[in-house]
């Protein structure tokens, strides 16, 4: 139920009473409605679902999570796969 894709806001504007943005999905551009993430600005990344931003992506959280997962992976390398029960 949730094909939500990260996109980078490259432009914001108002149209027909809605707060809109031009979003870059990695070389593909589409407009999306920002009414639900009004604090989003140019340069921010949002999760976009059917033409609407539903969530602002938190860079700090993303980095922390990746760091944590990298630590887990490094641990796996150190211990080696022979430690499987």
């Amino acid at each position, binding site marked *: *139920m*949730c*094909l939500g*894709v990260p*996109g980078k806001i490259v432009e914001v504007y108002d149209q027909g009473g809605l707060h809109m943005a031009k979003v870059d*999905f*990695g*070389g*593909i*551009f*589409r*407009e999306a409605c920002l009414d639900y993430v009004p604090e989003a600005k140019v340069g921010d990344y949002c999760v*976009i*679902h*059917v*033409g609407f931003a539903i969530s602002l992506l938190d860079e700090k959280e993303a980095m922390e999570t990746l760091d944590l997962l990298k630590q887990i992976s490094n641990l796996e390398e150190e211990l080696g796969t022979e430690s499987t029960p």
Partner: protein
Amino acid sequence: MSEETVNMEGAVCAPPLHHTDQIVMGHGAGGRMSHQLIQKAFLPAFQNPALQAGDDAALVDPGLRQQLSISTDSHVVWPLFFPGGDIGRLAVCGTVNDVAMLGAKPLYLTAGFILEEGLEMSTLQRVVASMQSAAQEAGVQIVAGDTKVVQKGKADGLYITTAGVGIVRPNVNIGGAQAKPGDVVILSGSIGDHGIAVLGARGELGFQSSIQSDVAPLNHLIEAMLNASENIHVLRDPTRGGLATTLNEIATQSNIGIQLDEKTIPVRPEVSAACEMLGFDPLYIANEGKLICFVPREDAENVLKAMRAMKYGEEALIIGEVTAEPQGRVLLKTALGSKRVVDMLAGEMLPRIC
């Protein structure tokens, strides 16, 4: 809130849907429904070995010194002009390529036009100029044609049907049923460009991109490949239905298995981005200027070298290999190292929200 337990064991669904009493869009998508239509509506009537072989062109032997390759295609693309090409270029290249994929040198094309009342003359002239340009690039002549006009509202502007004929090189035996275990699968370049370019140009899904269609005549590339190896088993262009459908067709025709390596399959970043956004898989998207080649591993090096020196083959690479088992199946080793089945496209590809 009610405390009653919901019966989670109910097993109910609607009766099956068989689209056998009328044509729906899925029949034209190039996938399984298209195949079933051919099996049910056409093959029982037009029985002959050339047609039964199931390749994109027919190999015929009229009792001359060499065999002929004959093919036909109809082109109904909309919009008529899209980034990287147009319906005219598509028409010429499509048939040139189908004829060439049997190892033939394409020589002559015919072109039938169905024109919609109200079509701008300048539009027709643009399309025709593009066809001539493509024909010149391919080195073929358009020697016969036909024109009909239909009432406004009946042809999306313009439909083109082409037929083509070419002479099959001596000492080749190329066709969808010729793949053998030990063959490698070579792909000439990135997948998904044409389909996404046309989808973008249609505007219905509202996205903009700089992706260009890859539509191109591949006969010169094929000639160079055939000069490099006499042992090429299969050549085909992955058009409607995409790479996945084409490989499934070959796996079925040759009764072999195909193992692909996901990490090797080239997809342009913008094509990948469009697919992510819409929920499409690049493996199923049409290509109009790419080919796949099955050749014994020993000859792969020579074929790749020849391809990379030619226009439209610069990015050629090996993406998989043929195995004896599982017969008729295409498998993919994912980037994570797991294996999954790659099936044929079923009906129409639809953007998803899930």
